[in-house]
Protein backbone atom coordinates (compact mmCIF):
# COMPACT_ATOMS: atom_id res chain seq x y z
CA UNK A 1 0.00 0.00 0.00
CA UNK A 2 2.73 2.42 0.98
CA UNK A 3 4.58 2.07 -2.31
CA UNK A 4 1.39 2.46 -4.29
CA UNK A 5 0.55 5.73 -2.56
CA UNK A 6 3.99 7.19 -3.15
CA UNK A 7 3.64 6.54 -6.84
CA UNK A 8 0.24 8.20 -6.74
CA UNK A 9 1.75 11.32 -5.25
CA UNK A 10 4.49 11.44 -7.86
CA UNK A 11 2.68 13.20 -10.72
CA UNK A 12 1.93 16.23 -8.52
CA UNK A 13 4.19 19.22 -9.08
CA UNK A 14 7.60 18.69 -7.44
CA UNK A 15 9.13 20.54 -4.47
CA UNK A 16 5.90 20.81 -2.51
CA UNK A 17 6.33 19.28 0.94
CA UNK A 18 4.31 16.10 1.50
CA UNK A 19 1.19 16.89 3.55
CA UNK A 20 1.62 16.00 7.22
CA UNK A 21 -1.29 13.54 7.10
CA UNK A 22 0.32 11.70 4.23
CA UNK A 23 3.59 11.36 6.14
CA UNK A 24 1.86 10.20 9.33
CA UNK A 25 -0.31 7.78 7.38
CA UNK A 26 2.61 6.32 5.48
CA UNK A 27 4.49 5.90 8.74
CA UNK A 28 1.62 4.05 10.47
CA UNK A 29 0.68 1.87 7.51
CA UNK A 30 4.33 1.22 6.67
CA UNK A 31 4.99 0.02 10.22
CA UNK A 32 1.96 -2.28 10.18
CA UNK A 33 2.83 -3.68 6.75
CA UNK A 34 6.41 -4.27 7.82
CA UNK A 35 5.44 -5.94 11.10
CA UNK A 36 2.90 -8.15 9.34
CA UNK A 37 5.34 -9.17 6.63
CA UNK A 38 7.98 -10.05 9.20
CA UNK A 39 5.41 -11.76 11.45
CA UNK A 40 6.67 -15.35 11.06
CA UNK A 41 10.16 -14.24 12.18
CA UNK A 42 9.40 -11.64 14.83
CA UNK A 43 6.35 -13.20 16.51
CA UNK A 44 7.46 -14.04 20.06
CA UNK A 45 5.42 -17.26 20.23
CA UNK A 46 3.82 -19.69 17.77
CA UNK A 47 0.46 -18.20 16.73
CA UNK A 48 -1.52 -21.45 16.75
CA UNK A 49 -0.10 -23.63 19.53
CA UNK A 50 -2.81 -24.52 22.00
CA UNK A 51 -1.82 -24.76 25.64
CA UNK A 52 -4.27 -25.28 28.48
CA UNK A 53 -1.85 -24.06 31.12
CA UNK A 54 -1.43 -20.60 29.62
CA UNK A 55 -5.14 -19.82 29.13
CA UNK A 56 -6.36 -16.26 29.79
CA UNK A 57 -2.97 -14.86 30.85
CA UNK A 58 -3.29 -11.08 31.24
CA UNK A 59 -0.73 -8.93 29.41
CA UNK A 60 2.75 -9.48 30.88
CA UNK A 61 6.39 -9.33 29.85
CA UNK A 62 6.18 -12.85 28.40
CA UNK A 63 2.84 -12.29 26.71
CA UNK A 64 2.74 -8.59 25.82
CA UNK A 65 -0.92 -8.63 24.84
CA UNK A 66 -1.93 -11.62 26.99
CA UNK A 67 -3.18 -15.00 25.83
CA UNK A 68 -6.57 -16.17 24.60
CA UNK A 69 -8.98 -18.93 25.61
CA UNK A 70 -6.77 -21.57 23.99
CA UNK A 71 -3.64 -20.22 25.64
CA UNK A 72 -2.34 -18.78 22.36
CA UNK A 73 -0.24 -15.60 22.41
CA UNK A 74 -2.44 -12.69 21.32
CA UNK A 75 0.46 -10.59 19.97
CA UNK A 76 1.69 -13.39 17.72
CA UNK A 77 -1.83 -14.02 16.45
CA UNK A 78 -2.26 -10.30 15.88
CA UNK A 79 0.90 -10.09 13.77
CA UNK A 80 -0.09 -13.10 11.67
CA UNK A 81 -3.65 -11.83 11.35
CA UNK A 82 -2.39 -8.49 10.05
CA UNK A 83 -1.22 -10.25 6.90
CA UNK A 84 -4.70 -11.70 6.39
CA UNK A 85 -6.53 -8.41 6.90
CA UNK A 86 -4.13 -6.51 4.64
CA UNK A 87 -4.16 -9.20 1.97
CA UNK A 88 -7.94 -9.35 2.07
CA UNK A 89 -8.34 -5.55 1.85
CA UNK A 90 -5.80 -5.09 -0.91
CA UNK A 91 -6.96 -8.17 -2.80
CA UNK A 92 -10.58 -7.01 -2.72
CA UNK A 93 -9.57 -3.53 -3.89
CA UNK A 94 -7.52 -4.94 -6.76
CA UNK A 95 -10.51 -7.01 -7.86
CA UNK A 96 -12.83 -4.02 -7.77
CA UNK A 97 -10.31 -1.87 -9.67
CA UNK A 98 -9.68 -4.59 -12.28
CA UNK A 99 -13.38 -4.85 -13.06
CA UNK A 100 -14.62 -1.40 -12.10
CA UNK A 101 -12.12 0.71 -14.04
CA UNK A 102 -12.79 -0.85 -17.49
CA UNK A 103 -16.55 -0.61 -16.88
CA UNK A 104 -16.22 3.04 -15.88
CA UNK A 105 -13.95 3.85 -18.83
CA UNK A 106 -16.36 2.25 -21.29
CA UNK A 107 -19.42 3.91 -19.77
CA UNK A 108 -17.78 7.33 -19.67
CA UNK A 109 -16.22 7.15 -23.11
CA UNK A 110 -19.05 5.70 -25.16
CA UNK A 111 -21.87 7.43 -23.29
CA UNK A 112 -25.46 7.06 -24.49
CA UNK A 113 -27.11 3.65 -24.27
CA UNK A 114 -23.96 1.87 -23.09
CA UNK A 115 -23.47 4.34 -20.27
CA UNK A 116 -27.14 4.23 -19.35
CA UNK A 117 -27.22 0.40 -19.20
CA UNK A 118 -24.01 0.04 -17.20
CA UNK A 119 -24.95 2.73 -14.71
CA UNK A 120 -28.45 1.31 -14.15
CA UNK A 121 -26.84 -2.06 -13.36
CA UNK A 122 -24.56 -0.24 -10.93
CA UNK A 123 -27.63 1.42 -9.38
CA UNK A 124 -29.22 -1.96 -8.79
CA UNK A 125 -26.11 -3.30 -7.08
CA UNK A 126 -25.88 -0.16 -4.98
CA UNK A 127 -29.55 -0.44 -4.00
CA UNK A 128 -28.54 -3.09 -1.49
CA UNK A 129 -26.32 -2.07 1.44
CA UNK A 130 -22.79 -3.38 0.88
CA UNK A 131 -22.74 -5.78 3.79
CA UNK A 132 -26.03 -7.37 2.73
CA UNK A 133 -24.79 -7.82 -0.83
CA UNK A 134 -21.65 -9.39 0.60
CA UNK A 135 -23.71 -11.70 2.81
CA UNK A 136 -25.83 -12.67 -0.15
CA UNK A 137 -22.83 -13.52 -2.32
CA UNK A 138 -21.20 -15.49 0.48
CA UNK A 139 -24.42 -17.31 1.39
CA UNK A 140 -24.09 -19.62 -1.59
CA UNK A 141 -20.69 -21.10 -0.76
CA UNK A 142 -18.91 -22.42 2.32
CA UNK A 143 -16.98 -19.52 3.84
CA UNK A 144 -13.27 -18.89 3.28
CA UNK A 145 -11.21 -15.72 3.46
CA UNK A 146 -10.41 -15.52 -0.26
CA UNK A 147 -14.10 -15.77 -1.04
CA UNK A 148 -14.70 -12.86 1.31
CA UNK A 149 -12.12 -10.86 -0.63
CA UNK A 150 -13.84 -11.72 -3.92
CA UNK A 151 -17.27 -10.84 -2.50
CA UNK A 152 -16.04 -7.53 -1.08
CA UNK A 153 -14.28 -6.73 -4.35
CA UNK A 154 -17.47 -7.48 -6.26
CA UNK A 155 -19.50 -5.25 -3.93
CA UNK A 156 -17.19 -2.30 -4.64
CA UNK A 157 -17.04 -2.70 -8.45
CA UNK A 158 -19.92 -0.25 -9.07
CA UNK A 159 -18.36 2.36 -6.79
CA UNK A 160 -15.00 2.24 -8.55
CA UNK A 161 -16.79 2.19 -11.90
CA UNK A 162 -18.62 5.40 -10.99
CA UNK A 163 -15.42 7.23 -10.14
CA UNK A 164 -13.69 5.94 -13.26
CA UNK A 165 -16.69 7.03 -15.34
CA UNK A 166 -16.75 10.56 -14.01
CA UNK A 167 -13.01 10.96 -14.59
CA UNK A 168 -13.38 9.59 -18.10
CA UNK A 169 -16.24 11.98 -18.85
CA UNK A 170 -13.86 14.84 -18.11
CA UNK A 171 -11.03 13.39 -20.17
CA UNK A 172 -13.01 12.17 -23.19
CA UNK A 173 -13.22 15.66 -24.70
CA UNK A 174 -9.63 16.66 -24.08
CA UNK A 175 -7.48 17.46 -27.14
CA UNK A 176 -5.11 14.52 -26.96
CA UNK A 177 -8.08 12.16 -27.01
CA UNK A 178 -9.55 14.02 -29.97
CA UNK A 179 -6.18 13.74 -31.64
CA UNK A 180 -6.08 9.99 -31.04
CA UNK A 181 -9.54 9.70 -32.50
CA UNK A 182 -8.45 11.70 -35.51
CA UNK A 183 -5.56 9.26 -35.94
CA UNK A 184 -8.27 6.55 -36.06
CA UNK A 185 -6.84 4.73 -33.07
CA UNK A 186 -8.91 1.82 -31.78
CA UNK A 187 -11.27 2.44 -28.88
CA UNK A 188 -9.21 0.07 -26.74
CA UNK A 189 -6.09 2.09 -27.48
CA UNK A 190 -7.80 5.35 -26.59
CA UNK A 191 -9.30 3.95 -23.40
CA UNK A 192 -6.26 2.19 -22.03
CA UNK A 193 -3.33 4.09 -23.54
CA UNK A 194 -4.65 7.65 -23.70
CA UNK A 195 -7.32 8.05 -21.02
CA UNK A 196 -6.36 5.54 -18.36
CA UNK A 197 -2.81 6.81 -17.71
CA UNK A 198 -4.26 10.26 -17.05
CA UNK A 199 -7.15 9.02 -14.95
CA UNK A 200 -4.96 7.40 -12.30
CA UNK A 201 -4.59 10.15 -9.69
CA UNK A 202 -8.26 10.33 -8.57
CA UNK A 203 -8.57 6.57 -8.99
CA UNK A 204 -5.67 5.98 -6.64
CA UNK A 205 -7.20 8.23 -4.00
CA UNK A 206 -10.46 6.32 -4.34
CA UNK A 207 -8.70 2.95 -4.28
CA UNK A 208 -6.69 3.79 -1.17
CA UNK A 209 -9.91 4.67 0.65
CA UNK A 210 -11.56 1.55 -0.74
CA UNK A 211 -8.86 -0.55 0.97
CA UNK A 212 -10.07 0.80 4.31
CA UNK A 213 -13.69 0.05 3.58
CA UNK A 214 -12.74 -3.35 2.23
CA UNK A 215 -10.87 -4.20 5.43
CA UNK A 216 -13.80 -3.03 7.56
CA UNK A 217 -16.39 -4.86 5.47
CA UNK A 218 -14.29 -8.01 5.20
CA UNK A 219 -13.67 -8.10 8.93
CA UNK A 220 -17.38 -7.56 9.57
CA UNK A 221 -18.15 -10.55 7.35
CA UNK A 222 -15.49 -12.59 9.15
CA UNK A 223 -17.04 -11.45 12.40
CA UNK A 224 -20.41 -12.78 11.24
CA UNK A 225 -18.79 -16.12 10.46
CA UNK A 226 -18.77 -15.68 6.67
CA UNK A 227 -15.07 -15.02 6.22
CA UNK A 228 -11.92 -16.46 7.71
CA UNK A 229 -12.51 -19.66 9.66
CA UNK A 230 -10.88 -20.84 12.91
CA UNK A 231 -8.09 -21.32 13.82
CA UNK A 232 -7.18 -18.44 11.51
CA UNK A 233 -6.27 -15.22 13.30
CA UNK A 234 -8.02 -12.76 11.00
CA UNK A 235 -8.72 -9.68 13.14
CA UNK A 236 -12.47 -9.76 12.59
CA UNK A 237 -12.60 -13.42 13.55
CA UNK A 238 -10.35 -12.82 16.57
CA UNK A 239 -12.75 -10.17 17.86
CA UNK A 240 -15.72 -12.39 17.17
CA UNK A 241 -14.22 -15.31 19.10
CA UNK A 242 -13.16 -13.04 21.98
CA UNK A 243 -16.72 -11.83 22.45
CA UNK A 244 -17.60 -14.65 24.84
CA UNK A 245 -14.76 -13.69 27.21
CA UNK A 246 -15.15 -9.94 27.03
CA UNK A 247 -15.76 -9.53 30.78
CA UNK A 248 -12.97 -11.80 32.04
CA UNK A 249 -10.32 -11.31 29.34
CA UNK A 250 -11.03 -8.08 27.45
CA UNK A 251 -7.48 -7.91 26.05
CA UNK A 252 -8.22 -10.67 23.53
CA UNK A 253 -10.76 -8.43 21.79
CA UNK A 254 -9.12 -5.07 22.46
CA UNK A 255 -5.77 -5.92 20.83
CA UNK A 256 -7.12 -6.70 17.34
CA UNK A 257 -9.65 -3.87 17.71
CA UNK A 258 -6.98 -1.26 18.32
CA UNK A 259 -4.75 -2.74 15.64
CA UNK A 260 -7.54 -2.42 13.11
CA UNK A 261 -8.24 1.10 14.33
CA UNK A 262 -4.62 2.09 13.77
CA UNK A 263 -4.50 0.54 10.30
CA UNK A 264 -7.72 2.17 9.15
CA UNK A 265 -6.70 5.57 10.53
CA UNK A 266 -3.36 5.23 8.77
CA UNK A 267 -4.97 4.44 5.42
CA UNK A 268 -7.50 7.24 5.89
CA UNK A 269 -4.67 9.68 6.56
CA UNK A 270 -2.93 8.58 3.36
CA UNK A 271 -6.17 9.03 1.44
CA UNK A 272 -6.75 12.49 2.91
CA UNK A 273 -3.15 13.49 2.27
CA UNK A 274 -3.34 12.31 -1.33
CA UNK A 275 -6.60 14.10 -1.81
CA UNK A 276 -5.02 17.30 -0.55
CA UNK A 277 -2.25 16.77 -3.09
CA UNK A 278 -4.51 16.03 -6.02
CA UNK A 279 -7.84 17.54 -5.04
CA UNK A 280 -10.49 15.74 -7.09
CA UNK A 281 -12.74 18.77 -6.81
CA UNK A 282 -10.29 20.58 -9.07
CA UNK A 283 -10.99 18.24 -11.96
CA UNK A 284 -10.10 20.97 -14.44
CA UNK A 285 -6.62 21.13 -12.98
CA UNK A 286 -6.15 17.40 -13.14
CA UNK A 287 -7.24 17.44 -16.74
CA UNK A 288 -4.80 20.29 -17.34
CA UNK A 289 -1.82 18.56 -15.78
CA UNK A 290 -2.86 15.54 -17.81
CA UNK A 291 -2.78 17.64 -20.93
CA UNK A 292 0.66 18.95 -20.19
CA UNK A 293 1.98 15.47 -19.54
CA UNK A 294 0.50 14.06 -22.70
Amino acid at each position, binding site marked *: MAELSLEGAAPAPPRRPLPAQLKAGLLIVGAIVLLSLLAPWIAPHPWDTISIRTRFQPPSLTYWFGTDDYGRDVLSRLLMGGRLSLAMGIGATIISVLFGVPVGLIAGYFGGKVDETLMRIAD*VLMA*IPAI*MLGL*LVLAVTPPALWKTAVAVGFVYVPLIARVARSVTLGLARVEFVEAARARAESAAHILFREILPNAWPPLIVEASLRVTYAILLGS*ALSFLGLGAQPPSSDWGLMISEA*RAFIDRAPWIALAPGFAMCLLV*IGINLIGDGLRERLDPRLKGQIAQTAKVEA
Partner: protein
Amino acid sequence: MAGYVLRRLFLIVLVLIAVSLLVFSITSMLPASVAHLILGPFAPPEQVKALEIKLGLNDPILVQYWRWVTRFITRDFGSSMLMDRPVAPILAEALQRSATLTIAAFVLIAGIGVSLGVIAALRHNRPLDHVVSIATYLGIAVPEFFWSIVVILVFAAYLGWLPASGYEPLSAGFWIWLKHLIAPTITLVFAHLAHVSRLTRSSMIEVLQSAYVTAARAKGLPERVVVVRHALRNALLPTITVLALDIGRLMGGIVVIETVFAYPGLGRLLVFSIQQRDLPTLQAAIVVVAAVYALANLVADLLYAWLNPKIRYGRTVA
Protein backbone atom coordinates in the same frame (compact mmCIF):
# COMPACT_ATOMS: atom_id res chain seq x y z
CA MET B 1 -42.24 18.22 -9.47
CA ALA B 2 -45.04 15.64 -9.44
CA GLY B 3 -43.80 14.31 -12.76
CA TYR B 4 -40.33 13.98 -11.36
CA VAL B 5 -41.55 12.11 -8.28
CA LEU B 6 -43.60 9.74 -10.44
CA ARG B 7 -40.63 9.07 -12.69
CA ARG B 8 -38.44 8.35 -9.68
CA LEU B 9 -41.03 6.03 -8.17
CA PHE B 10 -41.21 4.18 -11.47
CA LEU B 11 -37.42 3.83 -11.45
CA ILE B 12 -37.58 2.48 -7.90
CA VAL B 13 -40.02 -0.19 -9.04
CA LEU B 14 -37.61 -1.13 -11.84
CA VAL B 15 -34.70 -1.29 -9.39
CA LEU B 16 -36.73 -3.50 -7.05
CA ILE B 17 -37.60 -5.88 -9.88
CA ALA B 18 -33.91 -6.09 -10.74
CA VAL B 19 -32.96 -6.61 -7.09
CA SER B 20 -35.52 -9.37 -6.71
CA LEU B 21 -34.19 -11.07 -9.88
CA LEU B 22 -30.66 -10.80 -8.51
CA VAL B 23 -31.64 -12.21 -5.13
CA PHE B 24 -33.68 -14.95 -6.69
CA SER B 25 -30.90 -16.06 -9.02
CA ILE B 26 -28.28 -15.98 -6.26
CA THR B 27 -30.42 -17.95 -3.85
CA SER B 28 -31.33 -20.46 -6.52
CA MET B 29 -27.62 -21.27 -6.70
CA LEU B 30 -27.65 -22.39 -3.07
CA PRO B 31 -26.15 -25.85 -2.88
CA ALA B 32 -28.61 -27.98 -0.89
CA SER B 33 -32.11 -28.60 -2.16
CA VAL B 34 -34.79 -26.78 -0.20
CA ALA B 35 -36.74 -30.01 0.17
CA HIS B 36 -33.68 -31.59 1.75
CA LEU B 37 -33.43 -28.69 4.17
CA ILE B 38 -37.05 -29.06 5.23
CA LEU B 39 -37.08 -32.82 5.60
CA GLY B 40 -33.65 -33.18 7.17
CA PRO B 41 -30.66 -35.27 6.12
CA PHE B 42 -32.29 -38.69 6.68
CA ALA B 43 -35.42 -38.21 4.60
CA PRO B 44 -36.13 -40.99 2.08
CA PRO B 45 -35.42 -39.82 -1.50
CA GLU B 46 -39.00 -40.44 -2.70
CA GLN B 47 -40.34 -38.06 -0.04
CA VAL B 48 -37.81 -35.44 -1.03
CA LYS B 49 -38.92 -35.83 -4.64
CA ALA B 50 -42.57 -35.53 -3.70
CA LEU B 51 -41.93 -32.34 -1.74
CA GLU B 52 -39.82 -30.91 -4.54
CA ILE B 53 -42.74 -31.41 -6.90
CA LYS B 54 -45.19 -29.97 -4.39
CA LEU B 55 -43.05 -26.86 -3.87
CA GLY B 56 -42.49 -26.58 -7.62
CA LEU B 57 -38.74 -26.73 -7.24
CA ASN B 58 -38.30 -28.63 -10.49
CA ASP B 59 -40.02 -25.99 -12.58
CA PRO B 60 -37.85 -23.71 -14.71
CA ILE B 61 -36.32 -20.89 -12.68
CA LEU B 62 -38.33 -18.20 -14.45
CA VAL B 63 -41.60 -19.98 -13.67
CA GLN B 64 -40.56 -20.14 -10.02
CA TYR B 65 -39.64 -16.47 -10.09
CA TRP B 66 -42.95 -15.50 -11.61
CA ARG B 67 -44.85 -17.48 -8.98
CA TRP B 68 -42.85 -15.77 -6.26
CA VAL B 69 -43.40 -12.29 -7.67
CA THR B 70 -47.15 -12.69 -8.12
CA ARG B 71 -47.44 -13.87 -4.54
CA PHE B 72 -45.17 -11.09 -3.35
CA ILE B 73 -47.38 -8.43 -4.90
CA THR B 74 -50.39 -9.75 -3.02
CA ARG B 75 -48.27 -9.50 0.13
CA ASP B 76 -48.10 -13.25 0.50
CA PHE B 77 -44.40 -13.50 1.22
CA GLY B 78 -44.54 -17.25 1.73
CA SER B 79 -43.80 -19.08 4.94
CA SER B 80 -40.55 -19.08 6.82
CA MET B 81 -39.14 -22.56 6.52
CA LEU B 82 -37.59 -22.60 9.95
CA MET B 83 -39.99 -20.64 12.07
CA ASP B 84 -43.02 -22.26 10.44
CA ARG B 85 -44.85 -18.93 10.32
CA PRO B 86 -45.79 -16.69 7.42
CA VAL B 87 -42.91 -14.38 6.54
CA ALA B 88 -44.96 -11.16 6.33
CA PRO B 89 -45.69 -10.69 10.07
CA ILE B 90 -42.15 -11.76 11.04
CA LEU B 91 -40.79 -9.21 8.61
CA ALA B 92 -43.16 -6.48 9.75
CA GLU B 93 -42.15 -7.02 13.36
CA ALA B 94 -38.44 -7.01 12.56
CA LEU B 95 -38.81 -3.96 10.34
CA GLN B 96 -40.57 -2.04 13.06
CA ARG B 97 -37.86 -2.83 15.63
CA SER B 98 -35.10 -1.96 13.21
CA ALA B 99 -36.88 1.26 12.31
CA THR B 100 -36.97 2.26 15.98
CA LEU B 101 -33.25 1.66 16.26
CA THR B 102 -32.34 3.33 12.96
CA ILE B 103 -34.53 6.37 13.43
CA ALA B 104 -33.22 6.96 16.96
CA ALA B 105 -29.64 6.65 15.70
CA PHE B 106 -30.35 8.82 12.67
CA VAL B 107 -31.85 11.68 14.68
CA LEU B 108 -28.92 11.61 17.09
CA ILE B 109 -26.38 11.43 14.25
CA ALA B 110 -27.96 14.41 12.49
CA GLY B 111 -28.21 16.48 15.68
CA ILE B 112 -24.86 15.66 17.26
CA GLY B 113 -23.00 15.46 13.94
CA VAL B 114 -24.11 18.90 12.73
CA SER B 115 -23.48 20.51 16.13
CA LEU B 116 -20.01 19.01 16.38
CA GLY B 117 -19.24 20.10 12.83
CA VAL B 118 -20.33 23.66 13.52
CA ILE B 119 -18.38 23.82 16.79
CA ALA B 120 -15.26 22.48 15.11
CA ALA B 121 -15.61 24.98 12.25
CA LEU B 122 -16.02 27.92 14.63
CA ARG B 123 -12.89 26.78 16.49
CA HIS B 124 -11.06 26.02 13.23
CA ASN B 125 -7.52 24.76 13.91
CA ARG B 126 -7.83 25.28 17.65
CA PRO B 127 -7.60 22.50 20.26
CA LEU B 128 -11.34 21.81 20.33
CA ASP B 129 -11.38 21.35 16.56
CA HIS B 130 -8.63 18.77 16.80
CA VAL B 131 -10.33 16.92 19.65
CA VAL B 132 -13.53 16.66 17.61
CA SER B 133 -11.59 15.56 14.54
CA ILE B 134 -9.74 12.83 16.38
CA ALA B 135 -12.84 11.57 18.19
CA THR B 136 -14.87 11.34 15.00
CA TYR B 137 -11.94 9.80 13.17
CA LEU B 138 -11.93 7.03 15.76
CA GLY B 139 -15.61 6.54 15.07
CA ILE B 140 -15.23 5.58 11.42
CA ALA B 141 -11.85 3.97 11.80
CA VAL B 142 -13.07 1.23 14.05
CA PRO B 143 -15.52 -1.37 12.84
CA GLU B 144 -18.98 -1.25 14.40
CA PHE B 145 -18.64 -4.69 15.90
CA PHE B 146 -15.61 -3.55 17.85
CA TRP B 147 -17.45 -0.51 19.23
CA SER B 148 -20.36 -2.69 20.19
CA ILE B 149 -17.98 -4.87 22.20
CA VAL B 150 -16.47 -1.81 23.88
CA VAL B 151 -19.96 -0.53 24.72
CA ILE B 152 -20.90 -3.91 26.19
CA LEU B 153 -17.64 -3.97 28.13
CA VAL B 154 -18.08 -0.49 29.58
CA PHE B 155 -21.83 -0.14 30.12
CA ALA B 156 -22.81 -3.74 30.78
CA ALA B 157 -19.78 -5.56 32.19
CA TYR B 158 -18.10 -2.82 34.25
CA LEU B 159 -20.73 -0.21 35.03
CA GLY B 160 -23.65 -2.61 34.92
CA TRP B 161 -26.01 0.17 33.76
CA LEU B 162 -27.35 -1.51 30.65
CA PRO B 163 -28.23 -5.05 29.67
CA ALA B 164 -25.51 -6.62 27.50
CA SER B 165 -27.94 -7.68 24.82
CA GLY B 166 -31.49 -8.66 24.02
CA TYR B 167 -34.76 -6.88 23.38
CA GLU B 168 -37.88 -6.24 25.42
CA PRO B 169 -41.14 -5.02 23.88
CA LEU B 170 -42.62 -1.70 24.95
CA SER B 171 -45.32 -3.64 26.79
CA ALA B 172 -42.68 -4.82 29.28
CA GLY B 173 -42.36 -1.24 30.48
CA PHE B 174 -40.89 1.90 28.98
CA TRP B 175 -37.63 1.84 30.95
CA ILE B 176 -36.87 -1.78 30.22
CA TRP B 177 -37.60 -1.17 26.55
CA LEU B 178 -35.42 1.95 26.48
CA LYS B 179 -32.55 0.30 28.34
CA HIS B 180 -32.31 -2.42 25.70
CA LEU B 181 -32.33 0.20 22.98
CA ILE B 182 -29.58 2.45 24.35
CA ALA B 183 -26.48 0.31 23.84
CA PRO B 184 -27.07 -0.53 20.16
CA THR B 185 -28.07 3.08 19.46
CA ILE B 186 -24.93 4.53 21.06
CA THR B 187 -22.81 2.16 19.01
CA LEU B 188 -24.54 3.03 15.75
CA VAL B 189 -24.30 6.76 16.45
CA PHE B 190 -20.62 6.69 17.30
CA ALA B 191 -19.73 4.54 14.32
CA HIS B 192 -21.53 6.85 11.87
CA LEU B 193 -21.05 10.32 13.32
CA ALA B 194 -17.86 11.18 11.49
CA HIS B 195 -19.21 11.57 7.95
CA VAL B 196 -21.77 14.14 9.04
CA SER B 197 -19.57 16.10 11.41
CA ARG B 198 -16.58 16.20 9.06
CA LEU B 199 -18.62 17.33 6.10
CA THR B 200 -20.50 19.95 8.12
CA ARG B 201 -17.17 21.21 9.43
CA SER B 202 -15.54 21.57 6.02
CA SER B 203 -18.52 23.21 4.35
CA MET B 204 -19.00 25.51 7.35
CA ILE B 205 -15.35 26.59 7.13
CA GLU B 206 -15.82 27.32 3.45
CA VAL B 207 -19.06 29.24 3.95
CA LEU B 208 -17.72 31.24 6.90
CA GLN B 209 -15.04 32.62 4.60
CA SER B 210 -17.52 33.65 1.92
CA ALA B 211 -18.37 37.22 1.02
CA TYR B 212 -21.98 37.14 2.19
CA VAL B 213 -20.98 36.01 5.69
CA THR B 214 -18.51 38.88 5.82
CA ALA B 215 -21.31 41.16 4.59
CA ALA B 216 -23.67 39.86 7.26
CA ARG B 217 -21.05 40.51 9.91
CA ALA B 218 -20.34 43.97 8.48
CA LYS B 219 -24.04 44.76 8.78
CA GLY B 220 -23.50 44.26 12.51
CA LEU B 221 -25.71 41.19 12.85
CA PRO B 222 -25.12 39.23 16.04
CA GLU B 223 -22.71 36.32 15.55
CA ARG B 224 -25.38 33.76 16.42
CA VAL B 225 -27.64 34.98 13.62
CA VAL B 226 -24.72 35.03 11.18
CA VAL B 227 -23.73 31.48 12.05
CA VAL B 228 -27.18 29.92 12.15
CA ARG B 229 -29.22 31.90 9.61
CA HIS B 230 -26.57 32.76 7.06
CA ALA B 231 -23.78 30.24 7.25
CA LEU B 232 -25.40 27.04 8.51
CA ARG B 233 -28.37 27.13 6.14
CA ASN B 234 -26.05 27.06 3.18
CA ALA B 235 -23.48 24.76 4.68
CA LEU B 236 -26.12 22.12 5.40
CA LEU B 237 -26.81 21.30 1.75
CA PRO B 238 -23.99 18.79 1.27
CA THR B 239 -24.64 17.43 4.75
CA ILE B 240 -28.16 16.48 3.76
CA THR B 241 -26.90 14.35 0.90
CA VAL B 242 -24.54 12.59 3.26
CA LEU B 243 -27.33 12.08 5.77
CA ALA B 244 -29.30 10.32 3.07
CA LEU B 245 -26.35 8.06 2.39
CA ASP B 246 -26.18 7.45 6.11
CA ILE B 247 -29.60 5.85 6.04
CA GLY B 248 -28.09 3.26 3.77
CA ARG B 249 -25.01 2.91 5.95
CA LEU B 250 -27.20 2.51 9.02
CA MET B 251 -29.17 -0.23 7.33
CA GLY B 252 -25.87 -1.98 6.70
CA GLY B 253 -24.80 -1.21 10.26
CA ILE B 254 -27.80 -2.88 11.82
CA VAL B 255 -26.72 -6.20 10.37
CA VAL B 256 -23.69 -6.33 12.65
CA ILE B 257 -25.07 -4.35 15.59
CA GLU B 258 -28.26 -6.38 15.84
CA THR B 259 -26.27 -9.59 15.70
CA VAL B 260 -23.93 -8.52 18.49
CA PHE B 261 -26.67 -7.15 20.72
CA ALA B 262 -29.07 -10.00 19.91
CA TYR B 263 -31.60 -7.36 18.85
CA PRO B 264 -34.32 -9.12 16.84
CA GLY B 265 -34.61 -6.71 13.92
CA LEU B 266 -34.23 -6.90 10.16
CA GLY B 267 -30.45 -7.26 10.23
CA ARG B 268 -30.47 -10.20 12.59
CA LEU B 269 -33.31 -11.79 10.66
CA LEU B 270 -31.23 -11.50 7.52
CA VAL B 271 -28.12 -13.07 9.05
CA PHE B 272 -30.27 -15.76 10.61
CA SER B 273 -32.02 -16.58 7.36
CA ILE B 274 -28.70 -16.80 5.53
CA GLN B 275 -27.15 -19.03 8.17
CA GLN B 276 -30.22 -21.25 8.28
CA ARG B 277 -30.81 -21.13 4.52
CA ASP B 278 -34.35 -19.87 5.11
CA LEU B 279 -34.94 -18.74 1.53
CA PRO B 280 -38.44 -17.20 1.68
CA THR B 281 -37.39 -15.02 4.61
CA LEU B 282 -34.08 -14.08 2.98
CA GLN B 283 -35.64 -13.11 -0.34
CA ALA B 284 -38.39 -11.03 1.20
CA ALA B 285 -36.04 -9.33 3.67
CA ILE B 286 -33.58 -8.23 0.99
CA VAL B 287 -36.32 -6.78 -1.21
CA VAL B 288 -37.76 -4.89 1.76
CA VAL B 289 -34.33 -3.48 2.61
CA ALA B 290 -33.78 -2.37 -0.98
CA ALA B 291 -37.20 -0.72 -1.04
CA VAL B 292 -36.59 1.23 2.17
CA TYR B 293 -33.14 2.20 0.93
CA ALA B 294 -34.46 3.46 -2.41
CA LEU B 295 -37.27 5.42 -0.79
CA ALA B 296 -34.85 7.02 1.66
CA ASN B 297 -32.70 8.15 -1.25
CA LEU B 298 -35.73 9.61 -3.00
CA VAL B 299 -36.77 11.53 0.11
CA ALA B 300 -33.23 12.87 0.45
CA ASP B 301 -33.20 14.06 -3.17
CA LEU B 302 -36.56 15.78 -2.76
CA LEU B 303 -35.43 17.40 0.47
CA TYR B 304 -32.30 18.59 -1.25
CA ALA B 305 -34.30 20.12 -4.07
CA TRP B 306 -36.70 21.74 -1.65
CA LEU B 307 -33.90 23.33 0.34
CA ASN B 308 -31.84 24.39 -2.64
CA PRO B 309 -33.87 26.77 -4.79
CA LYS B 310 -31.28 26.54 -7.56
CA ILE B 311 -32.40 22.99 -8.31
CA ARG B 312 -35.93 22.37 -9.50
CA TYR B 313 -36.56 18.95 -10.88
CA GLY B 314 -38.95 18.36 -13.72
CA ARG B 315 -39.18 21.94 -15.01
CA THR B 316 -36.87 24.63 -16.21
CA VAL B 317 -35.86 27.35 -13.82
CA ALA B 318 -38.20 30.30 -14.22
